[in-house]
């Protein structure tokens, strides 16, 4: 069953001769539970495509359906709630709230929704990610790898339909990068989450069920 369906997706910036075609007619489907890696050179449209899947940006043309929801049909308020409930984001620069503790950061999407966390699941995730003794710390007190693990825990806790990770290992050294990638794959498989990951790292891409290569705003190849 397809959880993400993208139809003729276009995203243009600027106009006239200075127009940039970040996405130029992308068609794509991703099945539930699938681990998809998107690779490509800088400026090939990877991040734009990921942002479109997560409802972080609006397309110039085309449609994105996630778990049966047509994103262009949502108002801003609804789109925020959609992100909160259906999408788990993991960013390259972690995007943790510096004034909240690790625990509060992990619970943040649930807090926004006023929902109570599944305590067992929370404990499981934090143990799995090795964050048990860091829960009272602030992000500024953690290393880059630890911060990225907090971001992964935050993405997993609301049990979203899809997890979108934008170069999650980009700011980490190779050892930490491997660890984080392994954890990401393991947790996604363990909890049957659909994972879409952007990376420059081909080794990391090899972990995915499917690799999509982007070039000039189009899908150049799928493996």
């Amino acid at each position, binding site marked *: 069953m397809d959880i993400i369906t993208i139809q003729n997706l276009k995203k243009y910036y600027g106009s006239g001769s200075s127009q940039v075609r970040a996405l130029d007619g992308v068609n794509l489907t991703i099945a539930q539970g699938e681990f998809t890696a998107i690779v490509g050179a800088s400026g090939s449209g990877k991040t734009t495509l990921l*942002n479109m899947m*997560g*409802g*972080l*940006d*609006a397309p110039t043309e085309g449609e994105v359906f996630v778990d049966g*929801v047509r994103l262009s049909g949502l108002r*801003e*308020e*609804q*789109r*925020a*709630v*959609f*992100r*909160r*409930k259906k999408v788990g*984001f993991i*960013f390259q*620069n972690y*995007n943790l*709230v*510096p*004034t*909240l503790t690790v625990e*509060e950061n992990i619970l*943040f*999407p649930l*807090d*926004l*929704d*006023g*929902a109570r966390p599944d305590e067992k699941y929370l404990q499981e995730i934090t143990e799995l990610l090795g964050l048990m003794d860091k829960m009272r710390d602030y992000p500024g007190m953690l290393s880059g790898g630890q911060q990225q693990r907090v971001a992964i825990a*935050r993405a997993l806790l609301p049990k979203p339909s899809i997890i979108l990770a934008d170069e999650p290992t980009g700011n980490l050294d190779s050892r930490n990068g491997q660890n984080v990638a392994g954890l990401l794959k393991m947790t996604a498989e363990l909890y049957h989450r659909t994972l879409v990951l952007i990376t420059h790292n081909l080794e990391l891409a090899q972990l995915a069920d499917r690799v999509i290569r982007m070039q000039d705003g189009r899908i150049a190849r799928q493996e």
Partner: protein
Amino acid sequence: MLQNNNLKVCRRLVWRDIKFHKGRSLLLVAAVALVCMLYTFSFSLGGMIRDGYLYTYRMMYGSDSHILFYDVNRTQAAALQEHGSVREAVTLSAIGFLSDDMMEYRSVKLAAVSDGWARATEAVPMQGRMPEKEGEIALDELTMYSLAIPHEIGTEVSLCWTPADGGPERTDTFRLCGWWDSLMGQTETCAWITADTAQRLYPGGPERVALGVTLYRPKNLEAQAQEMLTDLGLSDVSYTVSLAYNEARREFADSEAMNYYRLGGIVVLCGVLMIYNIVGISAKQNVRFYGMVKSLGMTPRQIRALAVWQAFFYCVPAMIPGWICGFALYAAAAPLVVIGMEQNPAFQFFRIWPFVVGALFALLTTLAACALPFFRVAGNSPVEAMRFVEGERRRKARRGKRRRATTMQMAFTGLARYKGQSAFAAFTLLLSLCILCGIWTQKVSFDEDKYVDGLALNDYRLEDASATTGMQRYNPESRSITPDLIRRLTEHPAVRDIGLISTMEVDLYADEEMRAPIVDTFEGKDENGVARREYMADEPDWVAGYERMRESGEYTGIVMGVSGLMLENALAGGSVIEGEFVPEKFATGAYVIAAGADSYEIRTTPPVGSRFRVAGREFEIMAAVPYEATIVSGADSRQAQFNVTYYMPMEAFDELFPGHGIRNVAVDIDRDRQEEFEAFLEQLLEGTGITVTSFDDYRWNFRNAIFHRYMIPLFVGGVMLVIGILNFCNALVSRILVRSRAFAVYESLGMSGAWLRRMLVWEGVLYLGIMLPFLTAVSAAVTWVWGRWWLAHTNRWCVTWRYSLLPLWAVLPVLLAAVAVVPVCCLRVVRREQVTDRLRRPE
């Protein structure tokens, strides 16, 4: 999709943010306290102005009661008191009124003590007490001065009064048991006696009483009074309603208060700018933060809640200091705005609502400022929000030859990078300086010396106790200014010159020839084709006096004996309209000077050369001069509303009216000895009831008027200037704080702390160096153009053009100090954090 917007998380986020950024939060709290202070100040001041006017109207009305019913019988009074609209009532049972000639312009009722009425009219003895024993009386001070009654408890007082039933005038003797300060402007008051005394003097008591009522709803008093009378079938009862509740007067009071409330409008603008600028220190972080939390699923409503909680958390701790400072400012300004009250008007007119409204406005202002960053990204997707921040960082690539990175060049680059914020701070400064310099030039152009020289004929004028106000008829029998007092004054070493004036009303006769120019003047028509006497139609006493003279030639003359300075004042600086003033001839005592209208075209005095007799002695008019109204204080009789004034030497006056009183004394002193003279004067006049008007009073009045005129514009300009300076400092601070990572990069590349300091100070100096010529040129030009325009459109005689840029010069050292100190302090704060920590942080 079910939307659940948990708002508690917003509160926690904001609270944590405040805890994490204590310095910025404290700065914001201080800014909000300043805003709250300004609102509290402006609203309190406006409220006080309004209440002050209403208080004055109440004083003029003379009673706290809302409606006064005059002349009702006791049954009617009882019925009115019982009416459903009436909350409280006081009655006055007057057995008559004082009918001495000297009480001409005032109505003093002789009445049995009524504590309620006394309280409502502020006619409660401040010295002594209310009458308790048979034959005692309590009076107000103006009455005592008019009747030359000494201020001694137990003094025998003979009063001429007319009974309420219109019976013949009679004179009775009382013992003074107390007195109180008269309310200025109040023309009615009471002379209190005991009920027994009233019964003895007026057996059976008066059938009619006066009734003052206080209503539950003090609105539409006229309609309510009519309704009460209609309800009770008392259509013929006369009444008056309190001036303090008159709609037109209340509107006027509201409009006067509005000037101060408008200050609140400026505070809105300035406050939002100031708080927004402080919030703007972390504007990029805020926008990035909003983008980030949006990406995690925070809804616009929750982001709005963030702004609300931010405003709330900054406001709550700022309220009390804001209120305290606002009230302190208000208490300091209040006595300068509302003058003549014994108690500080800030306390007298204290109200809670300005504090509540001030806090509410401060909250709204803070909310507006906190919500601005949100509105900048509202409607954008999270990615667009992030792009909004990054877009500001894009710079065009420089072309041209390669340059070395010098301190100066890096300072220029830093300055150019934040030119928008720098320009904004410069604009705020420019606006405030234009306002301040323009208003300051106007203010200093009002020439105090010119004003005082023009209005104060002499350094001091002493006024007889019976002639201190315009509603007091001067009593020639009053002897408060004694020959001994004159002698002691004259002998004082500080006194350079002195002059006396005594006046007497006399019946005179003008034959056809003498009265002809006067009649021609008043029967003649002015340039509008209106007979001049028509302008006096609403002055029946004047009309009666004029008609009497026109028909019979009999008129009231006011003969004034003048000496020394008073003669100089009478001659009005030598502007003789007709005839010639010859001092030697005048000194013989056979000649007088007539005083009349200030015009060469019309005559209101008999012709020069004509003669008249006073007390059997003949005088010839040697000259006519304009009448100088400020030469004497107090009022003359109603009969003398139409009169001709004649000045004669004091010696001649002495011969005509031996033992006469002295109405006014003019004194010029050596101003270097002013303090010594005033101490002497205070001692000399103690307990005499003599009033002194000094040149300093005029100076003070002038300063007070100028203060009132320019207080608000200067205050507004001052607030804007403070905000401009804060914005300037803020511009210096924020561009250092947001570059902490960039500085870490420089440091990691080997730039020393001293180099960084030098670079930042240069940056500030360059900023000031670029801004200053612009500020100076524009504010100087605006001040000049505005000032000259104002000068051309103002017709005040006491203005001398004085171009001043004082506010600009005053602010320069502050700005110089800021560019020297602020960057150094900020850099020290930034460098407390390790270079590696700063490098890790996104810019």
